[in-house]
């Protein structure tokens, strides 16, 4: 028993030191390095406007990556992100065409539509046991089809409502864009869910070994289903924010978020096999990806060079800290 007493002492050490994952620390170090390299190119990379601007843009990816992370923790993946984002944005805008009630319900309705996509994914993965990589690909195609029909068939109302614009670009606290606050709130909720709730524990448990979780009396199918629904909802919410940011919804607005959201989660140290990862890492991953894209864009590197550098930097950073442990 002496070992457990020892551990009791260790338990009382500050949590963030004991828990800090080297991957997360390195990811944050990489962010600093990236900013430093950027500042060599132009001082304005360190200006508060630029940094806040990046945080604001990062928060769209952040919201989307939050859902992606939940699904990845289960050992699954959500490839329906692109059109869940578009559906969220377009349906929120569409709702606004139905008078004041529509305007009021625009945001919930957009999120609701994303949740519906997530539920279809969840049914496929949890109840029909279709690999997530393929069922989410299919729902993505269906969502795209629906939106094409919608845009062509019904005069689309696609400008964002005032509330959407306010959420994405307004300021409640001076200097801090609302989008950042929203991401912070969602992030805090996610941290709470993952670390303090039985749902969160179940997610990790299922990600590690679904069979064992099931035999422990967890309704694993419900948990998987809820996780996909949340992912769909958060993607759609990301779309709502994005529509607010751009003041309107558009067809392909989600395309640019699929691979970055996966990369952000994994760069943040979450195992793509599920069961391991912390939200702080995802935050770091999101900021990393956003900064990298932005700096490459502003440096006016031609597209080809940008792609190459983007790929190489991700590989390099993962080699730095994202390696699986050696097995001997």
């Amino acid at each position, binding site marked *: 028993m002496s070992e457990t007493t020892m551990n009791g002492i260790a338990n009382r050490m500050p949590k963030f030191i004991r828990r800090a994952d080297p991957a997360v620390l390195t990811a944050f170090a990489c962010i600093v390095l990236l900013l430093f390299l950027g500042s060599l190119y*132009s001082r*304005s*990379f360190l*200006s508060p*406007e*630029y940094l806040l*601007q*990046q945080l604001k*843009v990062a928060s769209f990816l952040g919201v989307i990556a939050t859902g992606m992370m939940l699904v990845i923790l289960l050992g699954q993946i959500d490839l329906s992100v692109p059109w869940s984002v578009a559906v969220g944005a377009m349906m929120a805008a569409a709702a606004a065409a139905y008078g004041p009630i529509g305007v009021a319900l625009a945001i919930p309705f957009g999120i609701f539509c994303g949740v519906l996509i997530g539920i279809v994914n969840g049914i496929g993965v949890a109840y029909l046991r279709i690999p997530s990589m393929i069922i989410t690909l299919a729902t993505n195609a269906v969502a*795209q089809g629906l*939106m*094409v029909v919608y*845009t*062509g*068939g*019904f*005069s*689309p*109302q*696609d*400008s964002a409502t005032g509330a959407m614009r306010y959420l994405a*670009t307004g300021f409640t606290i001076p200097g801090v864009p609302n989008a950042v606050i929203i991401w912070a709130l969602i992030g805090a909720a996610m941290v709470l869910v993952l670390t303090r709730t039985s749902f969160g524990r179940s997610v990790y448990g299922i990600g590690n070994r679904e069979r064992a979780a099931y035999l422990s009396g967890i309704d694993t199918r419900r948990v998987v289903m809820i996780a996909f629904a949340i992912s769909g909802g958060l993607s759609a919410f990301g779309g709502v924010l*994005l529509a607010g*940011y*751009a*003041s*309107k919804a*558009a*067809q*392909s*607005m989600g395309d*640019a978020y699929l691979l970055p959201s996966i990369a952000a989660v994994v760069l943040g140290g979450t195992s793509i096999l599920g069961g391991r990862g912390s939200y702080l890492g995802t935050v770091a991953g999101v900021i990393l990806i956003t900064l990298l894209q*932005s700096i490459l*864009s*502003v440096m*006016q590197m*031609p*597209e*080809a060079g*940008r792609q190459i550098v983007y790929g190489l930097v991700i590989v390099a950073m993962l080699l730095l800290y994202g390696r699986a442990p050696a097995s001997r």
Partner: protein
Amino acid sequence: GPEVVKGPAAEPDCFAPWAADTQFFKFPKKDGPYRIALANGYIANTWRIQMIQTAKAYAAQKDVAAKLKEFKVVSTGEDVPAQISAINNFIDSGFDAIVVNAQNPTAFGPVIKRAKEAGVVLVAFDNILDTKDAINVNVDQKGLGELWGKWLIDHIPDGGKILEVRGVAGTSVDTDRHNGIHEAFDASGKKWDVTEVAGKWDDPTAQKVTADAIATNGPFVGITGQGGDTGIVQAMIDAKHAFVPFGGETENGFRKFCAAHAADGLKCSSAGTGPAQVAVAIKTAIAALEGQVVPQSVKLPLAIVEDPNFKEGQDYFPDQSDNFFVGNSFPTCGINFTAQEIMGQTKADQ
């Protein structure tokens, strides 16, 4: 295959030849009504959807419908081979003419050969085909770039820092427009410092890269955008960037901004060719089938509106979608769609 003849074309104002040395085709006259197919590639963006709506609206017009036995549209996605196969299939199924918005202008050599052998009229538009054996309904992309460049030169007396928001890398449209802009700049003799970012013809992307560029390289004295222009203006507003002269595309949202903020300095040139060019392509195909003389390469007029001429209800539609592409009339071809005609198309059908 067609007979190469001397011009002018049957409707010289509509079927304007691309250049002085453009050949003219006369296909053997076929009896109608005709079976015409539209082979589209990618579909999931507003431009393409609007294009297909327009095509359907045009084919449904009474005098056009009378000439058509069948009008079939197939969208094959981003994949070039799928589009090639679709055209092959249309040829095998005995369609008289195929209108195509090519996913890759250079990839259709073998199909063009087959169409020619089978006597099928092939008309390309928007992304045209790299060939002298099919009819191209052509937008002067480079000319569009030159137009924007010249507009900026005219409105910015001393030169200076310009933001150029480009489109999708690797496409000829992007490259042509970019080259047009820069040739105009180079020829002006003024000093230009151009910041290039890639907006991918997409509002949120364009907005994001614009915001970044303003925060790090701004302010600018002029802006040109190939697409996603509504997003670019939005980014300027968000960053409280001063309104500056802007050469851009024909999105309704962009024109709304231009009309609203002209007084504050947002002077715009909004030019391009809307999705309605598909109607010109179909018209050309029918003309060719009827044995009329048509140029191998048709030059489409640009729909241009420049400050201070933005007129509500004609050049922009406040109650229409921001994503709606304005500039749907080609008066010389007798083609003139209202927004309602296009977007109401399916509804009327159902």
